């Protein structure tokens, strides 16, 4: 039974641009990063935002709690590297995933392009963040 496409939902994978039985092996990775990032966003970020973006600029922390010397010592270390991975890189991938799907929800652009842009940006910024920590460690 054939139907004119005009009156029925499209049967081509137009918006995702994938052949019908293409296995989406990469999606497991993006979803894993999204989920891990979501946990970090929920568990770590409330405190991180409160301390670094609210209490610190308002001057409500003890004077030398985040002095240049102490902040450098804490950040440019192995625990600092791990912290950046959990509090910056993973949330970046979480954001990239939600932005990508949000653009699909709002019918903006093509998913294949959005995907590359979003995860690509998250990967570049993550590399930059981890690179900064490593640069600080070997200064």
């Amino acid at each position: 039974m054939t139907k004119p496409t005009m009156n029925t939902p499209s049967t081509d994978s137009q918006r995702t641009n994938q052949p019908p039985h293409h296995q989406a092996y990469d999606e497991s990775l993006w979803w894993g990063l999204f989920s891990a990032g979501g946990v970090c966003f929920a568990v770590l970020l409330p405190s991180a935002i409160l301390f670094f973006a609210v209490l610190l600029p308002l001057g409500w922390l003890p004077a030398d709690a985040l002095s240049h010397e102490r902040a450098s010592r804490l950040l440019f270390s192995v625990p600092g590297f791990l912290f950046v991975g959990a509090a910056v890189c993973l949330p970046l991938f979480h954001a990239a995933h939600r932005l990508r799907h949000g653009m699909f929800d709002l019918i903006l652009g093509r998913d294949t392009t959005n995907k590359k842009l979003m995860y690509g940006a998250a990967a570049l910024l993550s590399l930059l963040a981890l690179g900064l920590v490593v640069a600080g460690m070997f200064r």
Partner: protein
Amino acid sequence: MDKSTSQRFVPLKRNWWLKLRFFKLYMLREATVLPLVFFLLCILAGMVALLQGPESWQRWIAFMGSPIVLLLNLLALAASLFHAATFFVLFPRVMPLRIGNYQLPDKAIVAGQWAGVLAVLLLFIWLFGRASV
């Protein structure tokens, strides 16, 4: 008359999510990443400043104190808590935890995650809440 040609099909419009409160809350949940991205970019700038030296570090702290930046980051704080509230309840549905024969109640899993938030807060207070030694 051919049945199939007479069918009516209306594709979803871009504003579909404005029609129901449930969908608006979904979009709000998805939008929590917007202030998150702003905060993460601030942190990246802070890391660059820290690497450049004490003067840039002070300048970055002053930048973080400017009203608009502070306001956006307060928004990010609210967003992170709203995200936590919506994200924690999904966990037991995605990964129901079982210890032997015992199915862990959903409420216990959600409470455990909030305990994690509290533990991180205590760690931050311990790290930054007192004069360093």
